[in-house]
């Protein structure tokens, strides 16, 4: 496909895809590579990286394998990133589409509603939500989704506002299609690319938010995640840099990869830039 070809010419995006694939592979194979529980004490505490070849990234203060933690943590970080983004996109698209398509009072009400969420700092809101509903995979995911949908809603609304005026939408009205049908079959498919771009960037932000929550001690205590690892290691930053360095690097790489991919998609889909490159 044309899209694939153009995408493959974008080096950044290809590198991003490569890194992300590796991370996903790591998440999938974690139970095979590091069987058993990543929480388990397996060696001497505070082994430096490479000090013992079977623990290449070293161990933490309880003698847990950092490499195992990173491999197992990949699943949580990615899952929270993806699921929260999906939820946010679902809410955002629904609200944005309704507001943009129907306009008028509906738009006014929905946009005011969106403003409430936008006016409160997203991270503060996430912190409060997670603290109040006690940290768990579900509460963290939902909290991140709840604070990140407004940007999707605004984007979708803007897209709908402009697409609604487009002649092919008017044509659909003229031939007698119903509102919901027009939204779903005429407008939405044409708004998909900016949504995909935003969503891909949101996954990255969600991973960062999750790690920041964990850092503040608001992570899910029953699952290993990168943010948790940094949060747990931060007090020992000076004594055992590797404990926070590697999970930090993992977050950095994952977020970077997703951003690169997102930008790649953007470049390929954005007609403005088409033909300028290469």
């Amino acid at each position, binding site marked *: 496909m044309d899209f694939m070809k153009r995408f493959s010419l974008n080096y950044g995006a290809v590198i991003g895809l490569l890194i992300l694939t590796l991370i996903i592979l790591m998440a999938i194979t974690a139970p095979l590579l590091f069987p058993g529980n990543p929480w388990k004490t397996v060696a001497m505490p505070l082994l430096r990286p490479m000090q013992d070849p079977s623990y290449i990234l070293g161990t933490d203060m309880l003698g847990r394998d950092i490499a195992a933690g990173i491999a197992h943590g990949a699943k949580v970080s990615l899952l929270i990133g993806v699921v929260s983004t999906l939820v946010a996109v679902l809410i955002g698209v629904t609200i944005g589409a309704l507001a943009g398509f129907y306009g008028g009072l509906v738009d006014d009400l929905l946009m005011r509603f969106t403003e409430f969420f936008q006016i409160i700092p997203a991270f503060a809101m996430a912190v409060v939500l997670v603290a109040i509903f006690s940290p768990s995979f579900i509460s963290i995911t939902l909290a991140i989704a709840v604070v990140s949908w407004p940007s999707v809603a605004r984007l979708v609304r803007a897209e709908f506002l402009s697409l609604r005026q487009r002649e092919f939408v008017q044509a659909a009205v003229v*031939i007698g299609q119903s509102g919901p049908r027009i939204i779903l079959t005429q407008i939405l498919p044409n708004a998909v690319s900016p949504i995909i771009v935003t969503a891909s960037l949101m996954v990255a932000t969600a991973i960062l938010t999750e790690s920041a929550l964990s850092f503040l001690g608001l992570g899910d205590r029953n699952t290993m995640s990168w943010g948790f690892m940094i949060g747990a290691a931060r007090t020992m930053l000076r004594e055992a840099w590797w404990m926070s360095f590697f999970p930090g690097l993992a977050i950095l790489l994952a977020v970077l990869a997703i951003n690169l991919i997102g930008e790649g998609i953007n470049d390929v889909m954005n007609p403005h830039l088409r033909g300028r490159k290469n």
Partner: protein
Amino acid sequence: MSTAQAPLLSVDKLTIRLPEGFDRKNAIEDISYDLSAGEILCVVGESGSGKSMTANAIMGLLPGYLKPTGNGIRYRGKNLLTLPEEEKRNLRGRDIAMIFQEPLSALNPLMTVGEQIDEVMLVHGIEDASARSARVLELMEYVGLPDPSTMRHSYPFRLSGGQRQRVVIAMALALEPSILIADEPTTALDVTTQAQILELIKRIQRAKGMGVIFVTHDFGVVADIADRVIVMEKGLVVEQGSADQVLNHPRHPYTQRLIAAVPHRGTERKEGSSTQTGDPAPLLELRNLNKTYRSKEGLFSKPRIVPAVQNISLTLRRGQTLGVVGESGSGKSTLGRLIMKLLDNDGGQILYQGKDIAPLSQSAFRPMRKKIQMIFQDPFASLNPRQTIGRILTDGPLANGVDKATARGRAEQLLARVGLDKSAYVRYPHEFSGGQRQRIGIARALMLDPDILIADESVSALDVSVQEQVLRLLREIQEQLKLGMIFITHDLRIAAQICDQIAVMRQGEVVEMGPPSQIFDAPQHEYTQRLIAAIPGKEWHPEHVIQNLHEESR
């Protein structure tokens, strides 16, 4: 100064390669022409033929990845292709100036127009601020801008299209350049404004003895102002010569084709033809229709009120084509959208076969929609890029309860009817040309067996030759199906070609109505008269040229 005979500018075998993956290899190829001082050289050709590219190459304004090659562009002995950037910059604005098509986007929205005119002088080394300031006033006065001392402090958005274009012209004239390049400077303007701007350019050109390269696709404009003409097709110059020669004795078949397609009088339908075949009962009747736009009323801000349609009463019969013409903003589209019920009216009635559809709610009206269909203006925007032609065509019948197989059969039938191959059914819009897309649009409207067809500027976005084909198709269809058609256009010449009746609109009101012959030959209203007077190229009669050609070939 060089000798009088030596051309001011000479373009010699200019070629510009396009990057991989474009529709053709070269944007322009082996272009050669000369421009002398004191002449207006018109460049004509269809969209994409390379007119703008040539102009931009002279200015050195091509994007970095497009590299012009060839023997050179010589201006007063200097080869512009090899001139260092700084020297070229110095020439721009001082020796060679340029005017663009879109007057709004050509001006920086955040600078006053005075500042922008002033800047040309400033960057070319005129240090004396008061001298510049005086010159700004003088220039604004000269291009006919009202009250220059106030207007210089205005921002572009406060000016009308015509005024903006005058500002751009003032900017171009600031340093009395010897060459002025105008790239379709009037295409975005109303006929009346266009006439004024053309007049202005002609006047200045005469007064200053400038060489002007005027890019256009409108033969009427060419006829009005050109000294010499070059015709371009797909990046090649196919014909060049004096205006008389090219316009009246075109040699190249492409030129001939273009000229044959120019809308002109004489092809009008015979008056009364429709009333004979038509149903005496009106198909559609508008009574005192009103629509006023109100900008969203804030809690405390007063709303902006635009009366777009005022007290319009019209009657449309079966088999009749009703033209609606008028300047931009006169409310033509609003009228069309009201009839389609894409907008709610404020007052009056819309009687469809005697039944008032105005008060119906959207859902109540939906089952009736199929009877009133529309052909849109932009063939690129009116087809959903994510749907196949088949889907686009069958969506309507499906929404109206027709089964899939029937709809498909009808779609294939109609594709043939509008002159498209069956294989179009599974293809996507971007695989078609503009003219073909407009045919698809027409097919879509016909899918539902409408009684009334509304065409809003349906051919304005098309090149003349394509425009002509689509118009012919519409006429055929109308004659066969005996629909009632409302044809909205800003071009009186086109309206004259296809309509039985023409309504002239101004500021939401119909000021005059009648058959084309009456509108053209005996316009009653002062506004209509002005419109007619502003039509470019009235002195030139393409139909005669064609006739002559026919006779020659016989």
